[in-house]
């Protein structure tokens, strides 16, 4: 039982790291970015190539899996995302779905359509027992890394100057501009960090979630659920939503395999009926 809880927490933490960037950018610019999973996939493939082909150690590959999607994110943000901010949600949806399709086909072309795996270091394989609870070493590592990221994000958002600027920009971009905050730069940085985190999540999760060219499509619904249930503009909301999603998904697949995937949708529907604006949102959303 506790093992399942443990796996669920690891899974949820992964989802959090994957989706938190999306929740902030969505809250900040009211921009619906369905292509968020593309950056996660980019991170995953960077890690695969670097570890498997070039023989770089796994831990050295993780920063790369963060940096490359982040740079990619900034470049795309600066060049093609920006004109779409002011458009209707329909245009944004079409645009980002277009990007997803292009990335799926491009990765398929370059890397092939089969699932790929990362060679993990020996030290991370297997599991050990603590009071009869089986704990996978790799999952423990994920929980530690993602937990640290969560704490760091919370700290950065609440206690740093950049964090207060970001929160101001989320609450009211126009007033924030009036106060001399360069909202565009704040956004570009946030976008880069969000994409980078997604990439890191993709690299860490390649082993657990499975990595293939369909990744952005398969996990689109998970990202949407995390953001819609967790609400935007805070770290704790998406964090709790991810944990809820992760634990219920793993538990659902284990206990009622016949229903499996329905569990998360049922939860989504219940939450939506109960709190249409999201479980942890602060009042109104725009």
């Amino acid at each position, binding site marked *: 039982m506790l093992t399942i809880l443990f796996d669920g927490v690891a899974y949820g933490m992964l989802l959090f790291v994957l989706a938190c960037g999306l929740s902030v950018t969505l809250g900040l610019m009211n921009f619906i970015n369905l292509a968020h999973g593309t950056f996660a996939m980019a991170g995953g493939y960077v890690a695969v190539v670097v570890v498997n082909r070039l023989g770089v150690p796994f831990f050295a590959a993780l920063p790369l899996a963060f940096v490359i999607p982040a740079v990619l994110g900034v470049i795309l943000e600066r060049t093609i995302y920006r004109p*779409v901010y002011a*458009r209707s949600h329909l245009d944004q949806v*079409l645009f980002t779905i277009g990007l997803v*399709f*292009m990335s799926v086909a491009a990765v398929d072309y370059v890397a092939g359509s089969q699932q790929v795996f990362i060679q993990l270091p020996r030290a991370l394989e297997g599991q050990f027992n603590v009071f009869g609870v089986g704990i996978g070493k790799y999952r423990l590592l994920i929980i530690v890394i993602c937990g640290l990221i969560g704490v760091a994000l919370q700290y950065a958002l609440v206690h740093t100057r950049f964090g207060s600027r970001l929160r101001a920009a989320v609450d009211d971009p126009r007033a924030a501009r009036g106060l001399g905050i360069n909202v565009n730069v704040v956004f570009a940085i946030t976008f880069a960090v969000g994409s980078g985190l997604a990439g890191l999540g993709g690299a860490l999760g390649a082993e657990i979630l499975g990595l293939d060219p369909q990744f952005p*499509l398969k996990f689109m*619904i998970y990202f949407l659920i995390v953001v819609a249930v967790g609400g935007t503009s805070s770290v704790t909301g998406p964090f709790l939503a991810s944990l809820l999603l992760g634990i219920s998904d793993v538990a659902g697949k284990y206990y009622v395999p016949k229903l499996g*995937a*329905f569990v998360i949708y049922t939860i989504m529907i219940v939450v939506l009926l109960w709190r249409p*604006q999201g479980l942890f949102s602060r009042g109104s959303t725009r």
Partner: protein
Amino acid sequence: MIGPGSGSLTAAVAYHLARRAHWRGLEIAFWAITLLTIFLLPGKHLILTEIAILGLFALSLDLLIGYAGVLSLGHAAYFGFGAYAAGLFAKHGIIGEPFFALLAAGLATAALGFATSFLVLRGSDLTRLMVTLGVSLVLREIANRYDGLTGGADGLQGITVAPLFGRFAFDISGHVAYVYSLAVLFILFLVARRIIYSPFGLSLRAVKGNPLRAAAIGIGVNWRLVWIYTIAAAYAGIAGALLTQTAQFCSLDVLSFDRSADLLVVLILGGTGYLYGGLIGAILFKLAQDWIAGITPQYWQFWIGLTLVVIVLVGSERMAGLLGPIRKLVQKA
């Protein structure tokens, strides 16, 4: 707020609606040409049937996006539901006659649309995207799991569709199928046109423009959205049922996300909010698919994606500039 004393206002609204609903020359030409394809292009009836079905499906999404402003990422849910319903009706001989089976499938899908509309209409655009996508994924999962009923990943096999009205058997080159699909499309188009130019359609536009303000002037926003969602679902279901009946086969593919996404492409190619967008988009989409699939079948998705990105970056208004004159002629008197 139209009370008994405002008879002249009601008359004025009715007059303007009637004027807008007037048939334009170009519209008549469009349908005349469509009618001619039955006789002039007998060798192309198979692909023309596909176009008609896709056009009907796109029309259904246009009712949602173009007139009510409801975004959907999972419209294939209703298409697929209708497709499976028609398939099961035919396979188990519940309703043998195709036309009545089509109506029944449409009604069943409408019921599903009505039930799910309450979920979809809550919350913002983001939650709508999530829920519509979620609904389609759930249906696909159900179809996949209950393979005893649906055939699972192998698809629903062994469907034999009875002759239409007991007289016209579906032939291999698809002549009956095409005339049948076209007739259904035309009838449903007329109904949609009637809805759009009714006071109900007018109030929908107000809801699309600004739901809050529409509610403030006394328009019941929610039940209007529920209705249009139900209608759109029924349209999609009928389109799906048509596909099953004309292809005599139905697979999980009808519920896939790609189908919903392709539909958005179709609609954006043709333009939203003037009824013909879906039909024109369906023609363009199928022709492009045919053409690109000849060159590079495997990476067709890439080109769809690129098309979307370019259309949005160039600006769908400017892109529609090509179709602008047609649109204007169709829209205004």
